[in-house]
């Protein structure tokens, strides 16, 4: 019921976003016209293979990488048109957590200072106030502030470093966090701790999340809706349960089949995947997935499939969706 209640008003609206990188005289088509929204209080999972543009999309949302065209509306305001001080102010409300927690902490700075840094940038002048907020947020992520604040990142394990990164992202009381593969670098046992922590923090601080990952099971564990991305375009968007139970896009189906199941009775399907993704420098015409798709025909190379509703709340961009 709670999930239904939050569907009303999108906090984030991404409209036909195009992001390209120059590579010598070539162009990498990283994100090619993606539209999506994230409702207030919702977690949208974004999945896809390496190089599909999911991280680029996350960065473009935060304006860390400017889009070539398209718009990013956050709480009704166009981030893509913002610059300087206005953008900096807006960034207090949107934060980012990275994949490699150890690399994203400055090895020479103490944890207390690392977590206080966003407060300083945001202009919180009162040192006692900063200290109090750092203390609170470190306790919230399950660390003992008195033991942790004076130490350096190398004294912590990967899981603890990710807790510190989460604390840093929470210290300004943001509304929206982009989590870019936050658990891929962690061991299974630690991964579960961090996923649970993210869920707790989301509830406690009333967060909205864009959760980027390549692991479908991890994405499902935390997401209300899931968007599947392939080579710069969205293939499918839908409610988590529905999308996993009845994938409509052949690529979603293929991703699901490729997951190794920790059950010896489930015989691994003979590689359903056909070859490797093509280069985003020269993406295929029409449907970008057609070169690996068992269902592809002539129409798929001639005509770009649009996202359309295949079932209530489930959208797929495919000329020949799975039944």
């Amino acid at each position, binding site marked *: 019921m709670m999930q239904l209640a939050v569907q009303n008003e999108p906090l984030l609206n991404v409209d036909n976003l195009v992001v390209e990188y120059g590579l010598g005289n070539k162009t990498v088509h990283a994100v090619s016209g993606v539209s999506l929204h994230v409702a207030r209080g919702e977690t949208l999972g974004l999945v896809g293979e390496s190089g599909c543009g999911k991280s680029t999309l996350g960065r473009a949302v935060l304006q860390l990488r400017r889009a070539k065209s398209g718009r990013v509306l956050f709480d009704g305001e166009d981030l893509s048109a913002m610059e300087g001080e206005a953008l900096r102010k807006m960034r207090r409300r949107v934060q980012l957590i990275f994949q490699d927690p150890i690399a994203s902490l400055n090895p020479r700075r103490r944890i207390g200072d690392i977590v206080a840094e966003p407060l300083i940038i945001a202009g919180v002048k009162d040192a006692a106030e900063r200290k109090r907020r750092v203390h609170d947020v470190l306790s919230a992520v399950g660390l003992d502030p008195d033991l942790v604040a004076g130490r350096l990142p190398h004294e912590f394990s990967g899981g603890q470093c990710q807790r510190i990164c989460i604390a840093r992202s929470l210290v300004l009381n943001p509304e929206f966090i982009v989590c870019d593969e936050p658990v891929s670098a962690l061991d299974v046992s630690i991964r579960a701790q961090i996923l649970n922590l993210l869920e707790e923090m989301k509830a406690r601080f009333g967060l909205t999340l864009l959760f980027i990952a390549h692991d479908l099971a991890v994405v499902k564990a*935390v997401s209300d809706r899931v968007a599947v991305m392939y080579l710069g375009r969205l293939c499918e968007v839908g409610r988590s349960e529905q999308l996993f139970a009845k994938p409509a896009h052949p690529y979603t189906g293929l991703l699901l089949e490729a997951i190794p199941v*920790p059950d010896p009775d489930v015989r691994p399907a003979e590689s*359903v995947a056909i070859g490797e993704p093509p280069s985003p420098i020269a993406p295929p015409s029409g449907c970008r997935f057609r070169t690996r798709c068992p269902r592809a025909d002539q129409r798929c190379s001639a005509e770009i499939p649009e996202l359309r509703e295949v079932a209530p709340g489930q959208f797929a961009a495919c000329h020949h969706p799975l039944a």
Partner: protein
Amino acid sequence: MSAPLLTIADVAVELPTPRGNLRAVDHVDLSLEAGRTLGIVGESGCGKTMLSRAILQLLPKKAKLSGRVMFDGQDLVRLAPESLRRLRARDLAVVFQDPMTSLNPVLTIGTQLMETIQEHLELDAPAARKRSIELLAAVGIPAPEQRLAQYPHQCSGGMRQRIAIAIALSCEPKLLIADEPTTALDVTIQAQILDLLAREQRRRHMAMIIITHDLGVVAGRADEVAVMYAGRVVERAPTQALFKRMHMPYTEALLAAIPKLETAPHTPLPAISGRPPDPTRPLKGCSFAQRCRYAAGRCHEAKPELKSAEMPGHLYACFHPIQMAEGIGA
């Protein structure tokens, strides 16, 4: 039953560190027959990679190794370096996690493949070239002749891993050790590489060890699985038994902590609290006791030895095993 191809007996590895000796592998026994697959599963730092390096005799120079590694009738620990070198590339092959660092970036694929083949199979250059092309085709590389002239950076991660497998298979090894062979790869590529390994293994009747942190990778593909924790094998069983009737709480916890596709979103995961113990500080009791929900007094006082379960070939090291049949157990 044939004699095992590989028998590891009481193998221990210690690494000196500034904080004292690190017990990376703590008295491990394992065996493996030709044509079978053994999965070694555990988290980072559990000693699984060090164990594989102890088998290959590729440990860091300062490491102290004890125990025996019997391979095909010879004790590798006592073998002369030259014999070991010949054995390693020919009968004993390895595929590492990161194909970018295991291939030489300044040599072409062809040079790297043909070097191995010429050295160990004593073929001339044209024959080695022909064999290289066959091998690349066998591991699913399109246009193998053109690939020979390319460098590793011109290939994708999946292609590089296929090449590394081709090199490993080039001399028809009796044992292939695959150390996290798909961890660096995408899930769709992972499935293809695991299939490739399984197919080549069947065809060549090789023995294979798959080392991984992902229980999903070994579930459908290994005959037997050994779970390692803090340097020790804490449970070992035929794959079916390990997944269906595990006795070691750590195995249960590890399996439970994996997010499952069939679970509804926002279900809290049964996480394992805390983290593995410091390997430079030997513990008196069971190394998992501090994180174990079943731990009681004795677990912190004495180390549980590996012992047999009701089923042949199933071993576990626990004072409070789970899922025990009536009348058996601690």
